[in-house]
């Protein structure tokens, strides 16, 4: 199963995501903001299979963290979780190679299907 790096500034949502992902059999590492995401990726001994990042977080957003990582050549598949129903905050971020936007409230069936699709799992 996949190694997932999950970032959200809400502890409750992190707990929810971790619980649901672990029930599905995924390995989960969490981050509370964009900087923690960047640090976690740099410190990782085994690379993550997929990123699940909240678009808006204080200090450094998921989008900014991803921009930084893509700049460093990190090509990990990425799902952006957004409270906006129109996807990426109305912007395209075509340069960031975002694989899909997941809107809140999260449709877990769709989320699991996307993870399986992007990590070659079932």
């Amino acid at each position, binding site marked *: 199963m996949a190694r997932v790096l999950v970032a959200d500034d*809400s502890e*409750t*949502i992190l707990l929810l995501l971790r*619980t649901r992902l672990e029930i599905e059999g995924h390995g989960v590492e969490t981050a509370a903001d964009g900087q923690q995401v960047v640090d976690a990726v740099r410190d990782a001994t085994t690379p993550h299979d997929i990123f699940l990042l909240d678009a808006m977080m204080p200090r450094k957003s998921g989008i900014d963290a991803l921009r930084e990582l893509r700049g460093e050549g990190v090509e990990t598949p990425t799902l952006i979780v957004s409270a906006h129903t129109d996807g990426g905050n109305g912007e395209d971020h075509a340069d960031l190679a975002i694989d899909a936007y997941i809107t809140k*409230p*999260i449709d*877990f069936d769709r989320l699991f299907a996307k993870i399986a699709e992007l990590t070659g799992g079932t």
Partner: protein
Amino acid sequence: MIAFAILTGLAVIGVARFLQQRQDFENATSRSYQREIEARNQLTRGEHPAAARATIVSQQSKRQALRNEISSETRDTALLVGAGLIAGLTGAALLFTGLISSMRRPLEDLVDASGRLAGGDLDARVEIGGLSETATLGGAFNEMAEELQRRAGERDQLDRMKDEFVLTASHELRSPLTSVQGFAELLLLEREKLDPKQAETVEVILDNTRHLVRLLNDLLDLARSDAGRLAIKPVPTDAAALVEEAVRTMRAQFDARAQRLELEIEPGLPRVEADRDRIRQVLVNLLTNANEYCPEGAGIGVKVGRNDADVEIDVSDDGPGIPEDQLAHIFERFSRGDAGETQRVGGTGLGLAISKSLVELHAGTIDAESAPGEGSTFRVRLPAIASPDRAELN
């Protein structure tokens, strides 16, 4: 103005002088008669007859001279007065005309500006000038226009704040809702560990959370629509396929209420420019309304066909129909059936308002036809893409 005053003054002076000359003439003449009468009395009495005769003659000639003098003076004065009067009257006439035109211009400007203001041009102002009366009027008009513009500005700002508030609030509400819905779903994943009462309670939480999310999405759509930010991404689309898709997603709900759903699609329809998600949202909204407002066992018909340059999608039912007073407001926000129905149906009351906004964004139209006891028909028209191939075929 000054010239007019001078001329009028001249006429007055002339008249005064004429009166004075007349008085002097009367006095001098009467004195002369007095002297002649005295001389004639002397002559009658036989005193200094030669001197008396001489006095009579001299007084008579003096009066003649006086008469000559007064008539020439009168003529001069009359000329003066006449000239003065003519000049004065001309001046008055000129002044009056000037007065009228100096009032007319500002009044015309005022009428013009009022028209523009009424037409919505809040920048309309008049130039202040002319007589003090019209200047006051112009000033008052400008103040009024200023005030109107200020209030319109305040109203626009309030509108923007309202839109911004709804956008932010619905965004902020989404995170806690995600947790509530997520954890309720988590509980249901282990349904076997819950007793039936607990499982039912969690179902209620989930149902209400989903309703709240729907409401939030609808409010967000409306706020976006109001702010002019409801964007669509239209692509050439097969409307019939979209309708089939919407019908498929709704099939279970119709079956659950034993309602018959008939789909009729005209072959060879042209495509339409449509944002698939948004038009599907409109269709699902119409189908959901038919499903929820019609009794069990009702018949629902969906027809897709051509209507001039449009593709028309009709959703009709043989349900209870809509009373005229409700039909008139059916596309307004929170306009719904009577309270009992609303309770049972449980929609957000925003669906048709959003559908209308969405269809209009596609340059289409949506309307409703209904009468109590005769069912309802909702009709969506989307402009067909003009196909050159088709034109050749025809």
